[in-house]
């Protein structure tokens, strides 16, 4: 956890520096009779840089460095994340309705002890609900896949 906090503090520091430099380089600080588009971003960048320093210093002084960032359950998070990414990448083929419905089944298999039969039922019911509720009733133009849903 200590390393993660340290990295986050340093990341905020660099975000602040990058914001300051980009605002300074690309955006005018003043405009006609008023502050320009770079005025606020510049000060936000400076603010982020300054605020990150106490965070880094506090972490540097922190003697408790044993707490771990990842737990055994983190693996489940990674699996669910991969599932979501895989489904999103294949949405042009699967379509929104079927693709998102597959996430429910995938989640049920990864997270619980649900049978394949109940997963299939959930996928079908969810896909139909998404298609008719969001696609038809609410009129959201959901991207369609190869089966036309």
């Amino acid at each position: 956890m200590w390393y993660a906090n340290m990295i986050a503090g340093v990341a905020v520091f660099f975000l602040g520096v990058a914001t300051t430099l980009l605002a300074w380089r690309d955006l005018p600080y003043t405009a006609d009779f008023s502050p320009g588009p770079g005025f606020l971003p510049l000060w936000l960048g400076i603010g982020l840089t300054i605020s990150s320093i106490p965070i880094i210093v506090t972490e540097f002084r922190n003697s408790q460095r044993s707490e771990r960032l990842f737990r055994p359950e983190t693996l489940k998070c990674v699996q669910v994340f991969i599932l979501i990414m895989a489904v999103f990448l294949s949405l042009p083929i699967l379509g929104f309705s079927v693709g998102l419905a597959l996430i429910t089944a995938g989640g049920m298999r990864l997270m619980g002890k649900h049978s394949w039969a109940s997963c299939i039922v959930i996928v079908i019911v969810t896909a139909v609900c998404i298609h008719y509720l969001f696609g038809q009733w609410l009129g959201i133009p959901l991207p369609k896949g190869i089966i036309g849903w």
Partner: protein
Amino acid sequence: MDLLHNIYTGFTIALTAQNLLFCAVGVLFGQLIGVLPGIGAPTAIALLLPLTFSVNPTSAIIMFAGIYYGVAYGGTITSILINVPGESSTVMTCVDGYAMGQKGRAGAALSISAIGSFIAGTISIILLMAFAPALARLALRFGPAEYFGLAMMAFGLLTVFGSGSPFKIIVTTLAGVLISTVGMDGVSGMPRFTFGIPPLLGGIDFVVVICGIFGLAEVFNSIEEPEGGVLVKDKFKLKDVFLTWQEWVDGRWAIVRGGVIGFVIGLIPAGGITTASFLAYLAEKKASRHPETFGKGDIAGVAAPESANNAASISGFAPLLALGVPGSATTAVMLAGFMMWGIRPGPLLFTNNPDLVWGLIASMYIGNVILLLMNIFLIPIFVAMLRIPYSIMMGFIVIFASIGAYSVNNSMFDVWMMVGFGLIGYVMKKLQYPVVPLILAMVLGRLVENSLRQALILSAGSVNVFFTRPISALFMLIALLAYCSPLIRMALRKAGRGKVDINLESL
């Protein structure tokens, strides 16, 4: 007479079939959200927001308000029955509520929560009706300097009421404002931080960020830290929820005190319902003749925080409606909703959209009555909801978040951005960077920049304008004190004062 006329107008609007339906759906949904783990009021509203594009704004706002105060009711059930707060605002209810459940009085604890929430909610609505228009009249005198000061005060108060490192709060606040600057500058039309990516020219939509940070990130966090608990009572009969006379006597003044504390805290930008429930519990313990019974199942320890969180959730609408400044993540999401429907909350809302304002306020009476009845007669159904496994719910949260993000611009780019913000939200939660300041700052970012630029134009570039106008100077002074509050707290701690004595052992 004006007030009576407004109330009458409000009820004629709130009692239409459509608005009654939206109110009932909202409070029912809020109650369910409160019961179910891993999803809170801002998430629920954010996920539903894009689906209400085609709905009448008054009906949609009535529904969202119902979700907000419905959640405050629903979170109690898990606090009392399984010692797991459904919402952060019901953390204090766990202390005495669960202890009451272990003594066989879970029904009474649920009952005093519902009755307390109803009475305090009603007190808060009455005070809101009197207070909000007065606040709006005062706000008519606000110029850009005052609005900038107000936003600074709201940001500053986040460091007072927020938990954790004040520097992390400041960082997330600044990051929120920074996100709001992405896209075309409103005055010059110059692109800022778009890196040549055309979809970023329109800026980063608030709904996309919310769906990621509150939807997807919460899924990951809930998987990693599952909320568990053992039901202290799983079957309820109607007679279980009746209070004894002594219980009512012990809890009645706690309801009134909690209601007043909740109302006042809700009015403060960034005050929030969680702070209200904490303060009400502490105040009740101080006021009690038997403080030693707190933490061991004292009914006043349930009544006070429950009354306070409901009262605060209602009075939190005053700064939103009258000033256009949200006081919590949920009202920040609602502000985004107002903007989506082309309505600008603030002092002119009361004159330009009286139907919406008074319809909303009147609907709160109706919503509270529905919730009271639901919480007395439908408890067994909500207890049954506790058995829904998270493995099923998780998929539906992802679906709503994905469709919510997609529907903003009908673009997959937004869905990928939602995934990015989901990861950011997950890391923030793990490293204890608070997300509420980020959301509030993002919503208020445009107001901050516009009012800052306008004020500096009017003052020919002099920052004295923020300190020479009395109201603005007051806001800036409060903001300054708020930012110095960590130092003040540190000094008090060193002097041996300011120690908070809360019995959290039973949590």
